[in-house]
C-alpha cells in the first residue's frame, strides 16, 4: 500500500515538512548524544547520517514518511510514519531532537496532525519502557498497548508496543 501524504502539514504552532540537508546536523547532534538511549543510540556519526538519508529516502520509495518539526526556525524533531519492509507494520514515530523542547506538547501536536492526514492502515508505535514522556504521548494519542506486535531484532530490549486506538 502506498499513500502520498502532503509535503507540508501545519498545526497551531508547528510546520511539518520533509527532511532536508539543512536538518542533518541537528539530527546528528541528537542521535550521537545521550537522549537516544531509548531508541538504540547513541550511534556513531556515519551510522546516523545513513539513517537520516534513509528517513528522507522513504519518501521517494513510499510517498510517505517522517516530517521534520519546525516553528519557523531550525528543525527540532521528527514525526511521521515509518515503514521499512513492505510487510512491516506502519509505525508512527515522534522524536524531539532538542531536550529544551520537551514538556510543551509539541510531539503530541505534531503526531495528531500526521494521524489526521494519514489515510492508511492501522498504525503502531514502539516506545522504550523508561521513556516516560513518550509513553505519555502514546497515551494522549489514544494508542493502546499491544504486546503481540513483533519488534525488529536490532531494537532495544523491552520496547513497549502499541496499536492505534481509533482510526483517524
Amino acid at each position, binding site marked *: 500500500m*502506498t499513500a502520498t501524504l502532503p509535503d507540508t502539514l501545519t498545526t497551531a504552532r508547528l510546520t511539518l515538512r520533509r527532511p532536508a540537508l539543512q536538518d542533518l546536523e541537528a539530527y546528528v547532534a541528537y542521535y550521537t548524544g545521550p537522549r537516544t538511549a531509548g531508541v538504540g543510540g547513541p550511534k556513531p556519526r556515519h551510522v546516523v547520517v545513513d539513517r537520516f538519508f534513509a528517513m528522507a529516502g522513504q519518501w*521517494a520509495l513510499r510517498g510517505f514518511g517522517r516530517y521534520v518539526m519546525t516553528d519557523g526556525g531550525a528543525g527540532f524533531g521528527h514525526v511521521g510514519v515509518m515503514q521499512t519492509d513492505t510487510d512491516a507494520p506502519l509505525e508512527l514515530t515522534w522524536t524531539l531532537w532538542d531536550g529544551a523542547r520537551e514538556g510543551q506538547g509539541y510531539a503530541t501536536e505534531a503526531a495528531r496532525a500526521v494521524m489526521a492526514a494519514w489515510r492508511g492502515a492501522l498504525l503502531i508505535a514502539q516506545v522504550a519502557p523508561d521513556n516516560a514522556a513518550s509513553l505519555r504521548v502514546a497515551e494522549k494519542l489514544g494508542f493502546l498497548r499491544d504486546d503481540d506486535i513483533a519488534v525488529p531484532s536490532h531494537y532495544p530490549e523491552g520496547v513497549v508496543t502499541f496499536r492505534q486506538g481509533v482510526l483517524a
Partner: protein
Amino acid sequence: MSVLTRPAPAHALNAAIPVLDTGRFLMRGYRPGDIAAFTAFYASDRSRFVAGPLDADLACRALMTYAGHWLLRGYGRWMVEDKATGATLGNVGLWYPEGWPEPEIGWTLFEGAEGRGVAHETALASRDYAYRVLGWSTAISLIDPANTRSRALALRLGCTPDGTFSHARFGRMEIWRHPAPSEATP
C-alpha cells in the same frame, strides 16, 4: 547513454532520479518491489565487501539510504534493470556517504548478474553522467582489497591506484582514480 524523459513516477520525489538508458540496461529510481532484491543480496555472502550481511530491516534501510541520497545530495545510485527481461541486476552509480574521502562511482551486482558486462556498462554511464551532467572534474571508486572482480573492472575502466582509505564500517579500501573527463571514453 541517453537521459530519458522520466516515466510517470509513483511519487513526485521519484522525479528527482533520472532514468538512463545504457543500451542493454535501464538505470532508474527505487520502488517497493526492489526491496526483495536488496534483502536477498544483503542476506548473501555477496554482500561481504559492502559491510554485509544485514538482516531484512537493515537491508531495507540501506535501499532507503540510497534513495535519500538523491533527495539530499542531488545525485546517487540507480537500480539497474535488464531491458529485455525487467529483472533487477544490481545497484550502480554515484555515492558520497558520510566519511568518504570524495564522491565515488560504486557498483553492486545481485546474484546471477555477473559475467555480462552489467557493471562495466552501467559504471561507464554513471561516470559519463557525473562528468557531463554534474560537471565532476574527477571520480574515484573504493574497492575492498579482496574483491578481485571489482579491481579488474576498475582496471578495465582505466582507473589507477591512488592510495588506501579506512572507514569505520567498511574497513580498509583501495582508492582507484578514474581517468579525468578529458581522457575518459563515454
